[in-house]
């Protein structure tokens, strides 16, 4: 009936508002729950979440080897064109020509940290690091070569 529905509405509204207010009060009286990081002060102890995406990096192991085969899947996947793979041809000991990566050019200034390239990479050669202090005085510094000089692809990765 109309009247019962009306009364039900009123009490339902009061109840749901009460639930919301209880939640905010719960946080209000618990200052320990505050999640604000006082950033420049706690620079040394700052812990970022694992999933935070700060920039694209290419991990190298102790032999200065990475896992990138130069397949350009990441370049194709990037919606902003922030990756450019420059390839070269290596001569394998057997005398075969083999495509390899010369320069992995990554433009941090155009990257939106969308993670597409990381997902696209078939050999998990790139990951997202959580470093976020990227400010520089010259924006050409934001164009980075991700593979270290003299590095080569790890054996056994095609």
């Amino acid at each position, binding site marked *: 009936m109309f009247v019962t529905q009306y009364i039900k509405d009123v009490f339902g509204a009061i109840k749901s508002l009460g639930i919301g*207010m209880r939640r905010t009060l719960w*946080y209000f009286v618990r200052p320990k729950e*505050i999640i604000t990081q*006082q950033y420049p002060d706690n620079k040394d102890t700052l812990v970022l979440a694992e999933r935070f995406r700060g920039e694209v990096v290419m991990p190298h192991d102790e032999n200065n080897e990475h896992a990138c085969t130069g397949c350009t899947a990441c370049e194709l996947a990037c919606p902003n064109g922030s990756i450019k793979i420059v390839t070269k041809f290596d001569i394998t000991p057997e005398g075969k020509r083999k495509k390899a990566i010369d320069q992995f050019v990554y433009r941090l200034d155009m990257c939106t940290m969308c993670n597409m390239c990381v997902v696209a990479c078939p050999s998990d050669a790139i990951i997202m690091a959580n470093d976020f202090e990227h400010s520089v005085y010259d924006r050409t510094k934001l164009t980075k070569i991700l593979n270290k000089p003299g590095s080569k692809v790890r054996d056994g990765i095609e």
Partner: protein
Amino acid sequence: MWSLENITKSVDSWLNLQFSPTIAFLIEAVIIMVLVIGLFAFLGLVLVFMERKVSSFMQIRLGPNRVGPMGIFQTAADTLKLIVKEGFTPNNVDKFLFNLAPFIVMVVAMVVLAPFAFSKGFQIWDVNVGIFFITAVSSLGVIGILTAGWSSNNKYSLLGAMRSGAQIVSYELSAGLTILVIVMLTGSLRISDIINAQADGWWIFKGHIPAIIAFVIYIIAATAETNRAPFDMAEAESELTAGFHTEYSGMKFALFFLAEYANVFIVCAIGATLFLGGWMPLHFGENNWFNSIMDYIPGIVWFFGKTFFLIFVIMWFRWTFPRLRIDQLLNLEWKYLLPISLFNLLLATVIAIAGWHF
């Protein structure tokens, strides 16, 4: 024991001894003006700080914490910034009205303060229509808002002003009806009578069901009348930039900002006076040990304590609920609050006539 009543009385008699009554009156008027302006400055600083702290704690943040310990000087620094900022007047505005609007809003907020009783005998003007005077004068604030919106020569301002006008005019109805409940239980419009009637218990306890319903509706209507979230349609940032004060800057903006908080204080003070006994300490029944213990706390502490409690509740609303759409807002008033408060008024009449309140 010292009390504010004795201080005001002795100042009054001393002035009347020294000067002719007219001069004494004028001097008293100046003292009152200084006190009111001081109160407003104090409110501006404290309430803005309180709002920022309350909001941040409710949102698991820290809030201002750099200027002074816990950031207590943050609002002072903000005020300084606003004072030295350029007061910019856009092209093609009606300059006279553009400059007048913030003052209308501010002056209205100051005039409304006249009949408030801050403590026993500490009242500017104990007029016999006290609460009616307050509701009548506070309805003028909307004219300042409409003027500001219209004279800014900006469609966002105009839209904000229209919304705010529609909102204030409609919520004034249910606010007025809830005030009537208490007026009926007391049988007087005079603020001191209303407070003295609560010497043996506040109306929210004595008036039980109708008083509690009225209190809830009053708080909702008061939030809407001060244009605060969840009823901040008038300045909905995401759609109207800042509503009626979009074009204001510097000190004129500061006046609007201050008036908003002054109005919050005023509606909460009305709520505290009507439902929670104003400066009257927490009493139950007459002349028992509990009452005499409560009497040791001075009235002004009670008054500000209750008012700030209600201000906290209104801030709590603001930082909990999302903004209403304009049709929801008008639905809430015309389909829910108004019929309920009309029935409540009827209920209160029956209770007042039958003497079923305590």
